[in-house]
């Protein structure tokens, strides 16, 4: 007998996680029994739809003629000259409703319709996912309720009004930290009681199986398009670095899905005050096993960030896997760096990004010529536009010394 054991086959990354919904040791389906049948139904509906060319055709058509896809990749000439690295932006800010959230929501609304459900519930942090869900509900003639923490209702007031204009009901959540985590709790509580006619339109690559996988698949259009576009712009090459911000991690997962099998370095940027990868431990919340901010007893910690969309104590389970096997790395940017990066992009390129993707930019600005060698090519997913944040940024800059 040989003493040398054959090496275990490497886990296939960003593949179908199968019925258990596991990404290595992360993921799963930790929901109350009342919700298990609904999750199973959703998984079956998604598998069937994702195998159905007719479904893809309809989804692609809507995203094209209604959503504005494909979104361009923009080379940043002045910013690149200043930083000494070649920055390319994947422009999800040009998607209808102003962020990547629409990609996922149109997919889920189509699935809801296939399952015969006529109401959507959603959680929202920055309000972008809420706006996207309200938009899809209007488009498909469905009822829509959006849960939003009271803190976020305050700092994203404009998005609350947008959702109401679109015909959705916004319910402020006053429990816990009154941010995204608590909005998810409340959306789940709603869903338990309404699951016979309601679909929970979860906004990121988190939650119980099949959500992390399904949402990544609905968002992979970002990465698939970007890879082609980069090859055209870079003379057939892939970018050296691919960078995206991470709240739950949907724009990052969608981006990474296009590049995971290339040699590009993948970087997810969390808010410094909400770094589940940096300061968390494995835990179970909102239906998934992943990295979570928590104390010794297992009580969930509170995230703190200027950006409502990244103010979440967890991260999608597939990111926990990509981080633990070393295929992607997860770093942070703090509030000050983020505000500076936002202004820099505005002044050099004429693009005002949302606070969330300003985290991804902040990493590039900080590390250009340091960790990111001069001359490297860097694709950054610009997940949303900054209009929603203008009033908040104005306040922050006024208060700044």
């Amino acid at each position: 007998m040989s003493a040398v054991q054959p090496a275990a086959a490497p886990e296939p990354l960003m593949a179908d996680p199968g019925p258990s919904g596991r990404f290595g040791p992360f993921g799963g389906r930790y929901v109350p029994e009342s919700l298990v049948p609904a999750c199973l139904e959703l998984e079956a509906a998604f598998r069937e739809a994702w195998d159905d060319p007719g479904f893809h055709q309809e989804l692609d058509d809507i995203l094209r003629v209604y959503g504005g896809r494909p979104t361009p990749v923009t080379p940043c000439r002045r910013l690149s000259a200043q930083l000494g690295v070649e920055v390319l932006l994947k422009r999800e800010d040009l998607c209808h409703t102003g962020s990547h959230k629409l990609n996922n929501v149109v997919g889920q609304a189509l699935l809801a319709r296939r399952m015969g459900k006529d109401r959507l519930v959603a959680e929202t942090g920055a309000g972008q996912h809420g706006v996207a869900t309200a938009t899809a509900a209007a488009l498909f003639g469905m009822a829509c309720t959006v849960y939003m923490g009271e803190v976020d209702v305050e700092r994203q007031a404009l998005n609350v009004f947008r959702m109401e204009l679109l015909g959705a009901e916004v319910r402020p959540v006053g429990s816990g930290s009154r941010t995204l985590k608590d909005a998810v709790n409340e959306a789940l509580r709603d869903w338990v009681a309404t699951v016979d006619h309601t679909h929970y339109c979860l906004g990121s690559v988190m939650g119980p199986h099949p959500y992390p996988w399904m949402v990544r698949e609905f968002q992979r259009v970002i990465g698939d398009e970007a890879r082609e576009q980069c090859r055209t712009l870079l003379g057939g090459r892939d970018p050296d670095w691919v960078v995206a911000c991470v709240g739950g991690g949907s724009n990052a997962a969608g981006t990474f899905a296009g590049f995971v099998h290339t040699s590009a370095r993948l970087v997810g940027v969390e808010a410094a005050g909400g770094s589940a990868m940096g300061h968390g431990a494995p835990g179970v919340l909102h239906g998934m096993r992943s990295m979570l901010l928590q104390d010794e007893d297992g009580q969930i910690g509170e995230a703190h960030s200027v950006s409502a969309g990244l103010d979440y104590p967890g991260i999608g389970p597939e990111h926990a896997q990509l981080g633990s096997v070393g295929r992607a790395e997860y770093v942070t940017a703090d509030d000050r760096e983020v505000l500076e990066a936002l202004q820099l992009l505005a002044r050099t390129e004429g693009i005002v990004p949302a606070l969330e993707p300003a985290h991804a930019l902040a990493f590039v600005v900080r590390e250009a010529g340091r960790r990111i060698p001069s001359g490297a090519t860097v694709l950054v997913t610009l997940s949303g536009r900054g209009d929603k944040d203008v009033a908040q940024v104005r306040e922050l800059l006024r208060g700044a010394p």
Partner: protein
Amino acid sequence: MAPPERLGTVLAAKREAGRKLFVPYVTAGCHPAWLEVVGELAAAGADAIEVGLPFSDPMMDGPTIQEASRQALERGTTTASVLDQLARADLPVPIVVMTYFNLVHRAGEARFAGRLAAAGVRGAIVPDLPLEESGPWRDAAEQARVDPVLLVAPATPPERAKRILAVARGFVYAVGLMGVTGERQALAASATAVAERLRGRSSLPVLVGVGVSTPAQAAQVAQVADGVVVGSALVRRLLEGDDPAALGKLARAFRAALDDA
């Protein structure tokens, strides 16, 4: 000392004797006198008592138990402090804890089960741990002689219910309605329907919980179920300032309604 009888054994024997089972719930630490309340509930004729270990994100709970959990945590309640108090209390009825899986996971299944057993706890309900994910926890609990209670919901299809019943221990927790814990004006039709579907299908007692709010509703449920779990109706009064004796009185009303059912 002989080990204490298993929860399932105690409850099944009472059911065989023709008694309807009454399992009241209180969130540990939600009130300075919570342990006195447990004593009153036992004296009022509870067959077991469900003690909630507070969690920061109780997603299966409605406003009352959310608020109780918040107050408990604000007072510095921890798993260790609760188990310590229970271990010293020497209660005359079995204690079943209810908590969310992250508290179990953080400690590690085996360690958590061992800590429960050491405190004299005889069962555990973990509502966000469905059948498919429950294997390691059930094994660890079994090792420690703690009964892992499983839930069946109104939405659970019959074939799935069968698989849950096959591995359930202690009692079967039949969820009375599709929704979170909390009081309801009227008993949901699903409360009796779910018990009806499970009747005679398990050697364990079938208890209906969630939405059983009054003694009259408890009596109605007991027509088809082996008993009830009552939580928010008691906890709300405790949060509103009722003293332990007043809760004991309400518990006796539930007991009487079940005895007459």
